[in-house]
C-alpha cells in the first residue's frame, strides 16, 4: 500500500527497479507478490501481470520477494541514478522445503538435518478450520497421532494420543508447549467439557510440531514419554504492515438422530410387554395388559378396535432438546515490522452454538507477539495472549435423566412436555422433565486465560546465542451450576454451586544455542536449565433455597450448604543438553540428555537422567548415488534410541505419608492418614527405538516418510492391594510394562501441475498395536480386561447368540461354544464364559488431504479414517436389552422383537423389566452391542474463490477470498450409533456437529 501512496516523481539521483515475478514451476506471473527493501522500510506489490516497479535512490540494496506458498527470496541489486534496473524473479514452490526450519525442543533445525521423528503442520493449512482449539486441527494430518473429539460441546475436550497408549493409570496425554510455555491441564471445569488450548485462536498458529520419538522428545525428560506437541504462533515479519480481516458465519447441525418409536406404536409395544409380564407372573396376559393400560392412563386401550393412532399422542423430546446452531467468527490481524522491530497483533472473536439447547462456546482473544532488536547482540521478545471464554453446557451427558443425549430418547413419548398453559409438565415417568431442566437450569464455565512469555536473546559470539526465557500460563476457571426452584431437578428451593479455580503455571528456561560450521560440517549445541512451578487453588460454595428462578446468585440462597477450598502445587527442574554434528551434511549424529527432577517423585527417586542418541545417513550426498541425482532429491535413513519419562499420573504429594482432610464431625474438621507413603515412587520410563526414511524425488513432486517404532514403557504406576484391615486399601508402586509399536507412512505428491490446474495430495497411515508386558509382581491380570499379552484397550465380554426362536429369550455362548441363558463371569479364565472380543484402539488410522486449485478456485478436502476399532454401544444396550419395561422410549430396533415361535431375530421379546424369568441378568454386556466403529470420514472440505488481483488491487486490497467450508460432511461406517468417532464405550456422549460455514478473507 505504501508504494501506491508514493508520488510518481523521479528525481535525478534516483533509479528504477522493475521486473516480473513468476512461479518457477509454471512460469505464470504471480500477482500480489511482495517486494520489500528493508533498508528503506518500503516496498510494493506486483500487479495482475506479476509486474512491479520501485523507485529507489542510487545505491546497493537487499530486496526481499515474498509470496504465500513460495520460498522467500532475497536478491542484492545495485541502483544507478537515472537508470532502470530489471530484476525478474522466478519463485520456487515452498513444498516440504528441505531448508525449511523445523521447530524442535529449545531450538530449530533445517528439515534436511532432522534426526528424530517430527511431524509438522503449517498454520496456514489449519487457520481457517471450524475448530476451537489447535489440537482438533491435528486430526488426520499427522501420522501416528490419534485425535478424537470426545464431546460435541464446542470448545470441549479433545483426546490426543501419540503412538498409542503407554500408561495404564498414569495419563497418556502429550505435553503441549506453546511458544516455549508448557500448558497446564489441571483444574478444568467440572461443569462443561473444556480445553485449556481453546484459549488460543487457531488463526494465530504458525506451525505445529509433534515430537514422536526419543531423539526428538527426550530433551523434555520426565514429561516427554507421551510425545510433545510444540505450538508456535505467528511472529512479525519485516515489511509493510499487512492486515488480514476474516469473517465467517455458519450453521451447526446434527450429524444424525436416533429414530424413536412414536407414541401410538410405543403404547402398543408397552402393552405387549405387560401382556408377557402378566403371562409370566400370574398366568394372566389380559390382566397384565390391562394393568399396563391403566398405568399409562389409557384403560380403554385394551378394548377391541381402540384406535391407537387417533387416541395416543406423541411428544418428541429430542426435537425440543436438539437444535441447529449458528457459529460466527471475526478475526483481524496486523503483521509487519522494520529492520529492528517485528510484530504480529491479532484479535479474534468466535462463537459457536452446540447442537443441543443451551450449549455454546464463545471466545474473545488478543494476541501480541513482538520482537525488537535492541542492538546487534540483544533481542527482546514477548508474546502475550489474553483470552476470555465462556461456555454453556448441556445439563449433562451420559446416562443421566438431564442428559439430552440420553433423556431425549429415554423419555416416555406419551407424556406431554408442556402443560396446556405452556408451562413445563413436571410429571414424566421419572418425575423429571429433561426439557425443563435443560431450559431452566444453568451449567456454565467461564475461563480467563493469560498465556504470556518474554525473553532476552543475546548473540554472544558468532553462532552462540543465549536466551533467558520466562513464561506464564495463568488460567482462572469459574464454574456455575444452578438448579432453578421451578425445574424438576434438585431440591425444592433450587440450588447453586459455584467454583473458582486458578492455575498459575510459571516456567523459566535459560538456554545456550551454538551453531558452527566446522570445515563444511555443521555443529549445533544446546545447553540449558528449566524450572517450572505450578500452583493451583480452588474455592467452591453451594447454597439452596431460592425464592424463584429469577434469583441466581449466592446472595439469594436462603441456606448455604457448603464452602470448601483446596490448593496444591508441584515443581520440576532440569538441566539439559543436546549436540548434533552433521558431518559433510551426510552423516548426522545427535546426542541428547536431560537430568530432570520433580517434587512429585519420592524423596529417594527425585532425579533421573533421560537421554537419546540418533544417527542419520543422507544417502543422496554420497558419491555412489550420483546416478540418481537427476531425479532423487533426498534420501535419508535415520535411527534413534532413547529414554523419556511420564510423571502425569503421580498426584502432587503421592509419595508422601500424609494426614489429609477427612470431612467433619459435629462441625469440626478432621484429619486422617491419607495412605502409606512410597519414597521410591517415580516416573514411568519409556524406551523408544525408531527407524525412519525420508525421501523426495523430482524436485519435490513426490515425497514421503516411512517410520517404524517400538516404545516399551515400564515402571508403570499401578496400585498394589493391601489387606484393608491394615486401614489402607492400596499402595501405588512402579511396576508393570506396556509395549507400543507401529508403522507410519506418509506420502505426498503434486499430482497435477499445469498452467491453470494444480493438485497436491498428502496421505498418511499408521498401523499400531499395543500389548501389556507386565503387571504387578506375579500378576497377569488387572481388573477385568487388562491382561498380560493383550492390548490395553481390550473388550472382554460374553458372546451373544441371538434370540431363541422358540422362546424369544436371549442366548449367549458359554466358553465351550454351547448355548446358555445364564453365562457366568467367574473371574477365572479357565471357567469364565467371557472372551476377548475386540479392542477400542484402532489397528490403523490416518488421513488423506487434497488441495486442487483451478484458476481462482481452490478446493481443500481432508478425509480421515480409523480402522479396526470396536466400541461397546452401551447406549443401544440400555434401550434394547430388556427395555420395554422401563416404560421408557423405544428405539426402532424394538420392532424386530421376537413375537412368535419360529421367528429369527436378535431382539428378545417385550417385557416390563430387565430381569425376566429364565435370565439372571438383564442388562448383560455382550457382543450384541459391540460394534465395529471403523470409519472413513470426509472431515473437512473448503472451496475458496480468490478474487482476481486486478479487481482487489483496484479497490485497495492485496487479496480477497470468499469460501465455503463443511466439517463432518460425510461418514462411511457400519457403526449403529450417531458418531463413530468415539473412544471406547458409547455412554450417551455428546455427538459432534456437522458444520457448514461461509466466510470472507481480506488482505490489505
Amino acid at each position: 500500500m505504501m508504494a501506491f501512496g508514493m508520488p510518481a516523481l523521479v528525481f535525478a539521483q534516483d533509479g528504477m527497479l522493475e521486473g516480473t515475478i513468476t512461479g518457477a514451476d509454471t512460469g505464470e506471473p504471480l500477482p500480489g507478490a511482495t517486494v520489500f527493501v528493508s533498508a528503506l522500510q518500503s516496498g510494493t506489490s506486483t500487479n495482475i501481470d506479476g509486474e512491479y516497479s520501485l523507485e529507489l535512490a542510487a545505491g546497493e540494496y537487499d530486496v526481499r520477494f515474498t509470496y504465500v506458498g513460495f520460498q522467500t527470496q532475497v536478491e542484492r541489486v545495485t541502483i544507478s541514478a537515472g537508470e532502470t534496473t530489471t530484476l525478474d524473479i522466478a519463485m520456487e514452490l515452498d513444498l516440504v522445503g528441505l531448508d525449511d526450519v523445523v521447530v524442535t525442543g529449545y531450538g530449530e533445525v533445517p528439515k534436511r538435518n532432522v534426526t528424530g521423528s517430527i511431524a509438522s503442520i503449517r498454520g496456514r493449512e489449519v487457520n481457517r478450520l471450524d475448530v476451537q482449539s489447535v489440537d482438533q486441527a491435528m486430526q488426520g494430518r499427522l501420522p501416528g497421532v490419534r485425535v478424537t473429539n470426545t464431546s460435541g460441546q464446542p470448545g470441549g475436550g479433545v483426546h490426543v494420543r501419540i503412538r498409542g497408549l503407554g500408561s495404564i493409570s498414569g495419563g497418556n496425554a502429550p505435553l503441549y508447549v506453546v511458544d516455549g510455555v508448557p500448558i497446564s491441564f489441571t483444574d478444568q471445569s467440572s461443569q462443561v467439557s473444556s480445553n485449556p488450548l481453546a484459549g488460543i485462536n487457531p488463526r494465530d498458529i504458525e506451525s505445529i510440531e509433534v515430537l514422536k520419538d526419543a531423539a526428538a522428545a527426550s530433551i523434555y525428560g520426565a514429561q516427554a514419554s507421551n510425545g510433545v506437541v510444540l505450538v508456535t504462533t505467528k511472529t512479525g515479519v519485516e515489511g509493510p504492515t499487512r492486515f488480514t480481516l476474516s469473517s465467517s458465519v455458519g450453521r451447526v447441525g446434527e450429524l444424525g438422530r436416533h429414530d424413536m418409536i412414536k407414541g401410538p406404536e410405543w403404547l402398543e409395544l408397552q402393552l405387549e410387554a405387560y401382556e408377557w409380564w402378566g403371562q409370566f407372573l400370574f398366568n394372566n396376559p389380559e390382566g397384565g395388559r390391562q394393568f399396563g393400560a391403566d398405568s399409562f392412563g389409557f384403560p380403554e386401550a385394551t378394548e377391541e378396535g381402540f384406535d391407537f393412532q387417533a387416541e395416543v399422542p406423541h411428544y418428541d423430546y429430542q426435537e425440543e432438546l436438539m437444535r441447529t446452531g449458528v457459529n460466527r467468527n471475526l478475526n483481524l490481524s496486523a503483521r509487519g515490522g522494520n529492520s529492528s522491530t517485528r510484530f504480529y497483533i491479532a484479535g479474534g472473536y468466535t462463537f459457536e452454538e452446540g447442537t443441543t439447547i443451551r450449549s455454546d462456546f464463545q471466545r474473545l482473544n488478543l494476541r501480541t507477539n513482538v520482537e525488537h532488536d535492541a542492538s546487534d547482540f540483544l533481542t527482546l521478545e514477548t508474546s502475550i495472549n489474553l483470552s476470555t471464554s465462556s461456555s454453556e453446557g448441556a445439563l449433562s451427558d451420559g446416562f443421566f435423566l438431564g442428559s439430552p443425549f440420553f433423556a431425549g430418547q429415554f423419555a416416555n413419548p406419551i407424556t406431554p412436555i408442556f402443560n396446556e398453559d405452556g408451562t413445563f409438565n413436571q410429571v414424566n415417568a421419572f418425575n423429571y422433565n429433561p426439557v425443563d431442566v435443560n431450559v431452566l437450569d444453568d451449567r456454565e464455565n467461564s475461563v480467563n486465560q493469560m498465556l504470556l512469555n518474554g525473553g532476552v536473546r543475546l548473540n554472544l559470539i558468532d553462532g552462540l546465542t543465549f536466551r533467558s526465557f520466562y513464561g506464564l500460563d495463568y488460567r482462572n476457571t469459574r464454574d456455575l451450576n444452578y438448579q432453578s426452584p421451578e425445574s424438576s431437578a434438585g431440591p425444592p428451593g433450587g440450588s447453586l454451586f459455584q467454583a473458582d479455580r486458578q492455575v498459575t503455571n510459571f516456567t523459566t528456561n535459560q538456554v545456550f544455542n551454538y551453531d558452527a560450521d566446522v570445515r563444511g560440517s555443521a555443529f549445533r549445541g544446546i545447553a540449558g536449565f528449566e524450572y517450572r512451578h505450578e500452583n493451583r487453588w480452588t474455592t467452591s460454595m453451594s447454597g439452596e433455597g431460592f425464592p424463584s428462578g429469577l434469583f441466581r446468585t449466592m446472595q439469594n440462597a436462603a441456606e448455604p450448604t457448603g464452602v470448601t477450598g483446596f490448593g496444591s502445587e508441584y515443581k520440576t527442574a532440569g538441566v539439559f543438553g543436546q549436540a548434533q554434528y552433521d558431518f559433510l551434511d551426510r552423516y548426522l549424529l545427535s546426542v541428547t540428555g536431560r537430568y530432570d527432577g520433580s517434587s512429585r517423585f519420592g524423596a529417594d527417586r527425585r532425579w533421573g537422567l533421560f537421554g537419546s542418541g540418533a544417527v542419520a545417513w543422507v544417502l543422496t550426498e554420497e558419491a555412489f548415488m550420483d546416478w540418481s541425482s537427476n531425479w532423487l532429491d533426498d534420501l535419508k535413513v535415520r535411527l534413534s534410541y532413547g529414554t523419556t519419562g511420564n510423571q502425569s499420573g503421580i498426584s502432587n504429594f503421592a509419595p508422601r505419608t500424609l494426614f489429609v482432610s477427612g470431612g467433619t464431625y459435629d462441625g469440626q474438621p478432621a484429619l486422617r492418614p491419607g495412605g502409606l507413603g512410597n519414597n521410591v515412587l517415580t516416573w514411568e520410563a519409556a524406551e523408544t527405538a525408531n527407524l525412519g526414511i525420508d525421501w523426495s524425488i523430482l524436485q519435490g513432486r513426490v515425497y514421503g516418510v516411512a517410520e517404524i517404532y517400538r516404545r516399551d514403557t515400564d515402571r508403570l504406576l499401578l496400585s498394589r492391594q493391601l489387606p484393608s484391615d491394615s486401614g489402607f486399601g492400596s499402595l501405588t508402586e512402579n511396576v508393570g510394562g506396556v509395549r507400543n509399536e507401529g508403522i507410519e507412512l506418509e506420502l505426498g505428491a503434486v499430482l497435477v501441475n499445469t498452467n491453470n490446474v494444480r493438485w497436491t495430495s498428502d496421505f498418511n497411515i499408521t498401523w499400531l498395536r499395543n500389548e501389556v508386558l507386565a503387571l504387578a509382581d506375579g500378576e497377569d491380570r488387572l481388573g477385568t480386561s487388562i491382561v498380560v499379552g493383550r492390548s490395553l484397550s481390550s473388550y472382554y465380554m460374553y458372546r451373544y447368540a441371538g434370540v431363541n426362536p422358540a422362546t424369544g429369550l436371549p442366548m449367549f455362548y458359554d466358553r465351550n461354544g454351547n448355548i446358555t441363558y445364564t453365562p457366568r463371569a467367574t473371574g477365572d479364565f479357565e471357567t469364565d464364559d467371557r472372551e476377548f472380543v475386540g479392542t477400542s484402539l484402532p489397528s490403523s488410522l490416518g488421513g488423506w488431504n487434497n488441495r486442487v486449485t483451478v484458476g481462482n478456485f481452490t478446493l481443500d478436502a481432508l478425509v480421515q479414517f480409523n480402522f479396526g476399532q470396536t466400541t461397546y454401544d452401551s447406549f443401544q444396550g440400555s434401550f434394547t436389552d430388556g427395555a420395554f419395561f422401563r416404560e421408557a422410549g423405544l428405539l426402532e430396533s424394538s420392532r424386530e422383537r421376537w413375537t412368535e415361535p419360529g421367528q429369527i431375530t436378535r431382539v428378545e421379546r417385550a417385557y416390563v423389566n430387565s430381569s425376566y424369568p429364565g435370565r439372571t441378568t438383564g442388562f448383560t454386556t455382550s457382543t450384541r452391542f459391540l460394534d465395529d466403529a471403523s470409519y472413513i470420514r470426509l472431515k473437512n472440505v473448503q472451496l475458496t474463490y480468490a478474487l482476481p488481483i486486478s479487481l482487489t488491487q483496484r479497490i485497495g486490497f492485496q487479496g480477497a477470498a470468499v469460501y465455503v467450508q463443511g466439517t463432518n460432511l460425510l461418514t462411511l461406517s457400519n457403526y449403529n450409533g450417531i458418531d463413530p468417532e468415539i473412544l471406547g464405550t458409547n455412554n450417551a456422549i455428546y455427538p459432534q456437529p456437522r458444520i457448514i460455514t461461509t466466510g470472507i478473507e481480506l488482505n490489505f
Partner: protein
Amino acid sequence: MTFRTVPALVLAALLVVLTGCDSLLDTEPQQSVSTEVGTSSPEGIRALYTSTYNRLTSAAYYGQRLVMAGDVLADNAVLHPSNSGRYTGEVVTSLGSGIGGWGRYTQINEINFALKFAPEIEDIPQAERTRIQGEMHFLRALAYHDLMKVYAYEPNQVVDGFDLGVIIRTEPTETVDQADFRTRATVEEVYNLIESDLLTAIDLLSQEDRGDRFFGNLAAAEALLARVYLYAENWEGAETYATRAMNNTTARLAEASEVAEMYNNSGAPGIESLFEVRFRQTESPGVNAALAALLTPPGFFDVTPSEEFLALLDESDVRNALFPLDTDTGAYGDDATGNFMVRKYDQSVATNTDNVPVLRYAEMLLTRAEARAEQPGKQSDALADLNLLRENRGLEAFATPPADLIGEILEERRRELAWEGHRWHDMKRRGMDVIKPAATGVPPIEYGRPQTLSPLPGGQVSLNPNLTQNPGY
C-alpha cells in the same frame, strides 16, 4: 557491565541454584500435613480424633447400612412398589446380601493412631488426653462389636465349631511392612478385647468425660458393655452395666406423649440417647445415601414396614405415630390407599439429614429386663422393667408375668428398636430362625445357614491367604 557479561552471571547463578537442587523442588501440601506433624501436634491429634467420629457417619455404618440392613434382612421390612433397586437382595435375605462393614478397619486404624500418639502430646492437658483415650477405647469396642455382630457367631451361639472372630489390630499401620496378612482371632479373643477396651474406657471416662451425648461418654461405655455382655450371655454383667448406664446418663425414658417426636431432634441429642451420631446440616449424607431418602417420600422410599411388623403394634401403642401411612405419593394397584413408612429419620436436621441414636435408654431397660429374666429369682424385676417401658408406650402393663417372659421382652425390643439396626442381631444372638414377611415369598432362614454371617469381602479373602472366609461363601 556489558551485555556480554550477562550470560556469565546467569551461569554462575545457575550453578548456585543447582547445587541446592533438592530444596529447589521443595513443596508443602496445603490441606494436609506430614504424619509427623499430624501425630505430634495437639491440632493433629484433635483432628484425628474428629476423624474417628466422622467415620461413624459413613453410609456403610451409622449413616445408613448398620441402621437399615438389620431390619431389612430380618422380618420388619418389605420393598416399596416403586423401589429404586436398593436393598432388593437384603429384603429376600439372598446369599451374600449381609450387612457387611469390613471397611470399619479404617476407623480402627485411626483409633489406633490416636491411642498410640495422644498420650505423648504434652501440649494437650492431661485431663483431655485421658478423655480422648477413653473415647477411643469406647469407639474401638463399638467398632469390633459391630464387626463381630456381622461376621461372627456370639460366644455361646457358635455353630459347627466355627469360632473365628475377626482380625485384631490394636497398633496403627505406619509402614507397608505392618500391612501384613493376618488371621482371624477367635470369638473369645475378640470379645476379650472388646471387654477390656470398655473396662478401660469406663475407667478413663469416669475421670473425665465431655458430658456430650454426641460423643463417647461414661454412660455410653457402660451401656455398650451391657450390650456386649447381653450378646455374650453374661446376664449378671449385662444387668449391672445397664443399671449403671441408666444411672450415669442425662438421658431418660421418653414418656408416651413424647414418643411421636422423640426422634425429631437436631440441636441436642434425643431424650433417650446415651450416644447418638450427629449429622449437622453441612454433614448430610445426601439423597443417595440418607436414611430419610430410603424410608420416606419424597425420597426413593425403597422400603416399608412389613404387615407382620405393623400387626405387632396395638391401636393404643403410641409408636404407631412413628409408622404412619403415606397417602400423598399414591399407591400401586387399585385398592391401595398408600404405604406405611418409617418416620424415625424424617429430615429432622435438614434435607436428608438426621441424627442416628446408637445407644438408647429403652434399649438399656430392655437389656436389663432380658438379663434379669434369664437369672433365677429376678423375674419380677424383669417384669417391672418391661412394664415401665410398656406404660410409657401406651400399652397395658402385665399384671402377672406372661408365660414366655423372654419372648415378650424380645417382641418389645422388636417394636421399640425397629429401624435402629437391632432386629437381625437380636434374632442371631438368640439363635432364632428368621421368619420372613409373607410378602417377600421367602421361606424361613434357619439359624446357622450361611446367611447368618455376612461374607468377608471376596477381594480380601483372595488377597490374604491367611484369611478364612465364612462358611457357605
